[in-house]
């Protein structure tokens, strides 16, 4: 097919360029732009009318000029070539080799926007993944095929937690079928290095594919990077039958790049300047997690985002929480009190936990004990605020017990070494140790049967 080349642009505005007097241009097709110095960049058609096309340039427009820049329309949407050779490799945000392993050659090219999964074809995720982190396994269990983000703040140890989960979750029955797709969007060099090092140390590097767009790379590439990465994940999961864990960081930088592009296009801004379609856009990424009936593989997503000002009502965490299947929320106060991982359990949640725990998967008491821990810890917070008014000494006996329980919960259950992996039995047994600090009649979420079986009754001397 003849690919016509046009010389000259009508307008340049940030990463957007306008080309006039074009014909036969398709919405969403790929474009190749040649700068006056001969450098070739890629772009995508965002809007097209009978004789005019608006194009988004991935690498940004720095160095382009009006008269000499040349534009070629490639007659197809953006695709990436994929084969199993991507394992162990590093690519940039648009899927080009960023290590010295050369480009991937493959007959199989995949549209990075994929197509929406038919809800009828989905397989409901039920198999839990043991992460070895008590707070997660016990209270917000991760399920294979789930999308469970980490809501964090600047300076909090979200990377350490994500790395720990990745390191410890891989230990399953079929290790060789497990791979990590890591996509960095606008993160710092040292953060990226941290992940590489951690993959290396845990010996999974050969099973990691990395798509890296760093803080000083063009921001518009950030919009492409997760799509390329998820396309790779889909290929590995649904064609190569692998279990894929996708770590996506930082969704805040991603959303900011989207906002920047939207404002360049002069779109009506929504909350805090983010475009009105931010929800749908994020959904087009997060909903690519899951499982398909009759196929072996799965895509589990752990997106990471830093909440501006630690504010969970900010549009990015807010819209994310509306789409993902729960969230793991980190809390600065815990971090400052030296509790790692500083997980604030009350706003945290795993929506798929209800169908993935219990006798069949973990243990019969799992869901009840977790609900009881939530309820008790929530009361701890009430007691704390009361104590700050009337003083600890004035608290009722039972409330003082709650304070003690809260303290132990944070320091024995939540707190855990970065290299310590607790199995589910250990986590649940720890949970019962703690809940047994409270008198039986306070435990309204536990059935008598569970209490009889697991509660550690004390004799007069306080011995269990």
């Amino acid at each position, binding site marked *: 097919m003849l690919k016509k080349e046009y010389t000259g642009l009508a307008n340049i505005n940030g990463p957007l360029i306008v080309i006039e007097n074009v014909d036969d241009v398709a919405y969403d097709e790929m474009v190749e732009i040649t700068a006056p110095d001969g450098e070739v960049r890629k772009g995508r058609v965002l809007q097209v009318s009978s004789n005019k096309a608006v194009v988004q340039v991935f690498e940004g427009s720095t160095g382009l000029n009006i008269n000499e820049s040349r534009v070629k329309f490639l007659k197809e949407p953006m695709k990436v070539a994929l084969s199993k050779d991507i394992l162990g490799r590093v690519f940039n945000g648009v899927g080009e080799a960023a290590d010295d392993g050369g480009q991937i050659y493959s007959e199989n090219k995949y549209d990075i926007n994929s197509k929406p999964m*038919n809800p009828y074809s989905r397989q409901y995720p039920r198999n839990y993944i043991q992460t070895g982190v008590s707070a997660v396994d016990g209270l917000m269990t991760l399920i294979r095929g789930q999308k469970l983000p980490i809501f964090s703040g600047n300076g909090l140890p979200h990377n350490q937690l994500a790395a720990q989960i990745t390191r410890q979750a891989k230990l399953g029955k079929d290790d060789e079928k497990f791979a990590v797709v890591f996509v960095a969007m606008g993160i710092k060099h040292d953060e990226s290095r941290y992940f590489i090092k951690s993959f290396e140390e845990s010996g999974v590097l050969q099973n990691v594919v990395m798509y890296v767009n760093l803080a000083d790379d063009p921001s518009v590439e950030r919009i492409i990077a997760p799509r390329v990465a998820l396309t790779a994940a889909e290929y590995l999961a649904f064609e190569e039958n692998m279990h894929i864990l996708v770590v996506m960081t930082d969704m805040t930088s991603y959303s900011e790049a989207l906002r920047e592009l939207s404002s360049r296009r002069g779109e009506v801004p929504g909350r805090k300047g983010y475009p009105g379609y931010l929800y749908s856009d994020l959904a087009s990424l997060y909903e690519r997690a899951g499982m398909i009936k009759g196929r072996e593989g799965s895509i589990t997503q752990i997106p990471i985002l830093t909440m501006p000002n630690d504010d969970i009502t900010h549009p990015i965490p807010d819209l994310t929480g509306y789409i993902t299947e729960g969230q793991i929320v980190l809390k600065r106060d815990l971090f400052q009190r030296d509790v790692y991982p500083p997980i604030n359990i009350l706003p945290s949640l795993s929506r798929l936990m209800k169908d993935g725990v219990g006798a069949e998967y973990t243990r019969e008491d799992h869901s009840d004990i977790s609900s009881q821990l939530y309820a008790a810890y929530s009361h701890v917070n009430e007691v704390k605020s009361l104590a700050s008014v009337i003083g600890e000494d004035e608290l009722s006996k039972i409330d003082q017990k709650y304070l003690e329980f809260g303290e132990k919960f944070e320091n024995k259950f939540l707190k855990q070494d970065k290299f310590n992996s607790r199995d589910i039995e250990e986590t649940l047994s720890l949970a019962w140790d703690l809940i047994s600090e409270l008198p039986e009649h306070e435990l309204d979420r536990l059935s008598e049967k569970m209490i009889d079986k697991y509660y550690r009754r004390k004799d007069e001397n306080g011995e269990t």
Partner: protein
Amino acid sequence: MEKQGKITFINGPVVEAENMTGYIMRELVYVGKLKLVGEIIELDGNSATIQVYEETSGMKPGEPVFSTGHPLSVQLGPGIIGNIFDGIQRPLPFLEEKDGPFIQRGTRVSALDPEKEWELKILIEEGDYLKSGQIVAEFDETSVIIHKIMVPPGKEGEVIERVPDGRYSIDHVIAKIKDKEENITEIKLYQEWPIRKPRPYLDRLELGVPLLTGQRVLDTFFPIAKGGTAAIPGGFGAGKTMTQHQLAKWSDADIIIYIGCGERGNEMTDVLEEFPELEDPETGKSMMERTVLIANTSNMPVSAREASIYTGITLGEYYRDMGYHVAIMADSTSRWAEALREISGRLEEMPAEEGFPAYLPTRLAEFYERAGYVKTLGEENEGSISLIGAVSPPGADFSEPVTQNTKRFVRCFWALDKSLAASRHFPAVSWLDSYSEYLNDLEPWYKDNVNEEWFELRSRAMSLLKEESRLQDIVQLVGEDVLPDNQRLILEVAKLIKIGFLQQNAFDDIDRYSDINKQYWLLKIILYLYDQAQPLVKKSVPISQLKNDELFNKLLRLKNTVANDEIDKIKEFRQEIDDFYQQLADSYQK
């Protein structure tokens, strides 16, 4: 001559075309070489703006637009129940069969299975004069739903031809009727109806029967009437979807239409896997035998999300017209409003509040007005549509436009509270912020069908909860110990109401569904305890004695231990309460 327009502009789901003279507003059109489904939303001279219901990637200016001559419609006939459709009524199982697990574009499939045959019983004779809505034939659509073929609205006439009883597929003409102007209407097993136009009925009736949901906080404290409207606003994780699923499972409607509008794919899969296994307490049959799913999840095209709400409600109206009570759950109406906003933005319309178009309140009003309890055309049966919409306010802030405007048009407001959800008090329906405007309408029904003192009981419990909230404010300042014992007793009883009655675990086989009688007795027993304990406070029995851990604990567990058909066990519990307090009183007498 075939009309054909030409595309001039493409921006995502919004496409402009010229050469569009003769096309009608809201017409269904096929757009581009792939013939994607679209709808005309603006006509201006020779050109038109089209909202496309599928992804437009790869489309070019110059490609054709094809006319159909009719507005975007649904096919109404057998095969709807038990099925799952996308926002424009494409059956998802068929799409899977044709295209595999990912939804492709331009795939056109019939909404209803054209091949399947149904065992019809014809109810009319040649020579009968049939009115609109009159029933022509009926047959079992599922094991619990009898499907009734009706004369389409606006048509009537004398039967000039009819087929005998037998097996027919949907395209078969089963009768012909001729009206006074000699117009002949062929009656098939299906009719078509434009989704944006409410189906007519004879008369709107007053509401007076509750839609029982088996959820205690709703049925007892904030009941909705059959034919009524309710909104469930709440931040993410507050329990909107779980509540909607509970309603879909346990409501005493004949037919459930569940619209997943811009939400998660797995939540639809969850319903698909769970419902066939669940038994309807009324019919003993699988829940799927009365359920229709509409799924336009968040990653599916945004404009079809906008249409999905109308598709769902039109299907509902069709079954209402047969004389059924239909309950429709829409999760979430905020996503529908946002779809409106997105399209409006692409049309460069002048935004009103927070970017939403100025016509948002009108659209919401039109939607909720399609609920109601009616006398049907033709047969003059009674049927109803109850509408329950989830609302997802950004940042869980109820002052935003969708929540506020919805509040104007619904009469039940089931506000979900973030802090209740955080402490795992479910359903997290706030007893202080929620309300039902149907209370007075429903009072006679509850009195006749449950108990004469129902409303008194409810009001007493409600005032205790309100009093408790006031006392908690004081406790937060000075601690509980300073309160007098009669007030501390109120705190304890309110706790019984909250844990023993309001909290309801959707995952507990017994607790998940409470019939109305069990609800009454559970509340009754708590207040009974209060009535026995209260006099002892006056006799200076300390609260630590009145609140007996064993007794209270047992009472709290009644909801989980007593099944709906074992109510006597709750009644018998009165004896235990009597015994305990009698003994206590005696020991203080001495």
